[in-house]
């Protein structure tokens, strides 16, 4: 059993407050000085339906879930039924037995059972059923030794807006939970000694907030979007902050409008972005081709969820990768960046704004539900070296007739004017055009224009975020992955290293233009390479095979049940050594 590393899961019905309680416990862990990662697994509805919220805390950073759940707080029997197989042997289940009992066939003897009438305590002893979540907090706090002072301070801070009475009853609810354990159970489960260092100057932030924050810092001043899970947080964050900083946000009538709006604002000279998920991306695909053809800088945040069609709207998947890279009619340049942590989400969002304007093309930030809606602790964000680089934007008057908006240049990037600039009047047409913007079907011009636009990707290449290479001494086995899989892969790597079976890890941060050289070098340096991804068809593996050919030392590790990898699934795949390993199925 791992000391000082615990995974707590709250399970119950959507709308019963387990998300709020989960957030609260995450905050307490963070202020106790622990590193925290949270994962929301909720249904696509507001009330009812099983929901669970996982909070992982430990003394070292975690960017993903553990192998097993240590502590399940089950507000109903369904939560136990659904998750008992995910429990670590020796873990414990806190079950609200007010209305339901645990059937004998469900019991596992290797677990510690705490069957407590949490709902009854809330309703009868405290007179308010609503506070049963807070009672459960007191129960957990007593069982795992959470800092009682921090817990009380956090609860006070969260409820003080609602008045003294609300604070008071929630404090009493914590005490009732703690007291029940002291009165009814002899000892606390062994192994969890959650004493950690001081909190320090650290943050706890959701991936989507980090993307939005980075975009603001990176100079974005216009956002248009259409609400869609799991991307809506970005639109809401920007709606709150952009107007305070000389920007504006528009909620569009659909994603077709949203992408055309950001194209319009970017054409006018304002750094612009949208955020969407798979279904919205399908609608935006037409506009993204237009932006690329017109060499207009836009940033598209894609918070991937499981497709196709509506798919699993609130679950994670990496299956939009090839749509992002190859989607759209015709051939056009784009850049695709993929952060692997909340911290990287912030910095890559800044990079995305600069890259879009420097190379005058669409830039994607690809995140996934397991990263964008997860919270994690991180060090204070650094503003050292953060700069806005507007590339070849011209703000001075130009000479009409001499100025060519789509001029052929050595680096393929043309000086760009915006409306209002004297002398720069031109047509920007989605139809093929000459260097001055006049529509033409001339064959030579077409060839040159294709080479100019596509050539910008090669110009941009040296400027693109480098992959993270985590090398282990003596390792001849490698793992390649990106996005939310950074967490489980890194953890699997640590543990394989400790087992004496060391592995290397290449985390890709730029996915397009594809980092051919980095991938080739990594594969050459390893005898076996495992490609870990949340797809059925192995989309990343296919991109890799396109570069290195159909080699036998490449293995696929795939999971496509809508849930993120747990480290043990990757460890098992590497140790088995089979050509294709399917996890979670």
């Amino acid at each position, binding site marked *: 059993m791992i000391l000082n590393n615990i995974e707590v899961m709250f399970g119950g019905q959507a709308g019963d407050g387990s998300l709020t309680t989960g957030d609260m416990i995450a905050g307490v862990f963070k202020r106790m000085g622990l590193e925290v990662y949270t994962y929301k697994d909720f249904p696509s509805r507001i009330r009812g339906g099983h929901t669970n919220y996982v909070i992982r805390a430990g003394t070292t950073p975690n960017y993903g879930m553990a192998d097993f759940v240590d502590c399940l707080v089950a507000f109903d029997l369904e939560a136990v039924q659904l998750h008992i197989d995910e429990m670590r042997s020796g873990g414990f289940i806190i079950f609200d037995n007010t209305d339901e009992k645990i059937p004998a066939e469900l019991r596992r003897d290797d677990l510690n059972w705490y069957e407590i009438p949490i709902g009854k305590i809330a309703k009868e002893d405290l007179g308010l059923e609503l506070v049963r979540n807070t009672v459960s907090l007191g129960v957990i706090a007593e069982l795992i030794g959470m800092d009682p002072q921090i817990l009380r301070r956090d609860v006070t801070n969260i409820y003080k807006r609602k008045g003294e009475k609300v604070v008071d009853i929630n404090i009493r609810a914590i005490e009732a939970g703690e007291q029940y354990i002291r009165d009814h159970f002899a000892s606390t489960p062994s192994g969890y000694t959650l004493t950690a260092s001081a909190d320090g100057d650290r943050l706890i*932030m959701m991936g989507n907030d980090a993307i939005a924050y980075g975009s603001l810092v990176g100079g974005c001043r216009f956002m248009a979007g259409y609400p869609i899970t799991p991307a809506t947080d970005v639109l809401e964050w920007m709606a709150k902050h952009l107007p305070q900083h000389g920007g504006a946000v528009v909620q569009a009538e659909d994603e077709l409008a949203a992408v055309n709006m950001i194209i319009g604002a970017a054409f006018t000279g304002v750094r612009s972005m949208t955020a969407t998920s798979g279904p919205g991306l399908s609608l935006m695909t037409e506009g993204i081709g237009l932006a690329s053809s017109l060499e207009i800088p836009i940033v598209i945040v894609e918070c991937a969820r499981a497709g196709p069609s509506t798919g699993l709207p609130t679950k994670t998947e990496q299956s939009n990768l090839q749509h992002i890279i190859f989607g759209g009619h015709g051939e056009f340049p784009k850049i695709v960046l993929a952060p692997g942590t909340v911290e990287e989400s912030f910095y890559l969002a800044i990079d995305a704004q600069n890259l879009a304007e420097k190379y005058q093309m669409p830039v994607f930030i690809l995140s996934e539900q397991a990263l964008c809606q997860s919270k994690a602790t991180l060090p204070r964000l650094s503003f050292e070296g953060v700069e806005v680089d507007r590339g070849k934007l011209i703000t001075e008057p130009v000479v009409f007739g001499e100025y060519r908006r789509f001029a052929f240049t050595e680096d393929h990037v043309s000086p760009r004017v915006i409306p209002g600039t004297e002398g720069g009047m031109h047509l920007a047409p989605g139809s093929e055009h000459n260097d001055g913007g006049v529509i033409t079907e001339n064959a030579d011009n077409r060839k040159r224009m294709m080479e100019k636009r596509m050539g910008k990707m090669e110009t941009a290449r040296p400027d693109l975020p480098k992959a993270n290479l985590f090398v282990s001494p003596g390792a001849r086995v490698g793992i390649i992955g990106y996005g939310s899989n950074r967490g489980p892969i890194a953890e699997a790597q640590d543990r394989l290293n400790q087992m004496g079976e060391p592995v290397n890890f290449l985390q890709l941060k730029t996915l397009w233009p594809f980092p051919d050289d980095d991938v080739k070098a990594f594969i050459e340096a390893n005898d076996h390479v495992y490609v870990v991804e949340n797809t059925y068809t192995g989309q990343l593996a296919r991109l890799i095979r396109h570069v290195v050919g159909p080699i036998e030392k490449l293995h696929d590790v795939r999971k496509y049940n809508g849930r993120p990898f747990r480290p043990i699934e990757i460890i098992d795949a590497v140790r088995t050594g089979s050509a294709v390993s399917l996890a979670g199925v």
Partner: protein
Amino acid sequence: MALVMSPKDFATATPSWWCPGCGDFGVLASLKSACAELALNPRDVAFVSGIGCSGKISGYLHSYAFHGVHGRALPVATAVKVANNGLTVIAAGGDGDGFAIGAGHFLHAVRRNPNITYIVMDNQTYGLTKGQSSPTSDLGYVTGTSPSGNPDAPLNGMAVALAAGGTFIARGFSAQPKKLIELIKAAIEHPGFSVVEVMSPCVTFNKHNTFAWFKENVFDVTQIEGYDHTNKQHAFEALTADGKIPLGIIYQSQRAAFDDLVLGDTPPLTTADVYDTGRFRDIQDSYR
């Protein structure tokens, strides 16, 4: 000092792709004259068009012109205005662009009421794909895609605009340039979303709704006795009555423009300081 402009100042060197005699020439000429008479500066005019014969018009107006994808001129134009409300923003498209593939955006532009002008060049057919039926084609119109006659009733775009909360609804005829210039000028000066539907005959494919047919079938809305273009009831009756097609300013009212509501006192977004990145350092304090 006010500029003195002539229609020629809004001409481009690009030769037209339109068929000889196309109604769209009349729309373009009137638009250039209206811009000149309003003494607009081409550098401060953003002109957005969609796809189709009508969409070609953005290539022929000296301005910051944008020729986007089919049906999406209005979202682009709305955002251009929000991004820089110092610009005069005009969008143009055809009946297919505005009332078929872009019908959703049309409704929402009317509802939002951004301070932009939308010119719908209505020829009641799909010209660039060689004469299929459009959302404004007559019932029974025989085309390659409707060999037994168009089974769809025509859409009354201006009545829809009125119902959706339109604040400036006008209709012109491309063969009446003097009146059309005045309509376009009034539309550009209207503080909100102004839509001008211009009956612009297709001389190649629409053999029914011809210049001659329109001359017989249009009338000036002011000829209706006691007509008040600020009266919604009058406007609705005029737009939905059977018989001849009313021209002129059909309806005008005022309410807050979208860009004003979104921006408030914010100066043009193009002037926002993006370089001082360090001032955002403290936002992270709320995540401690």
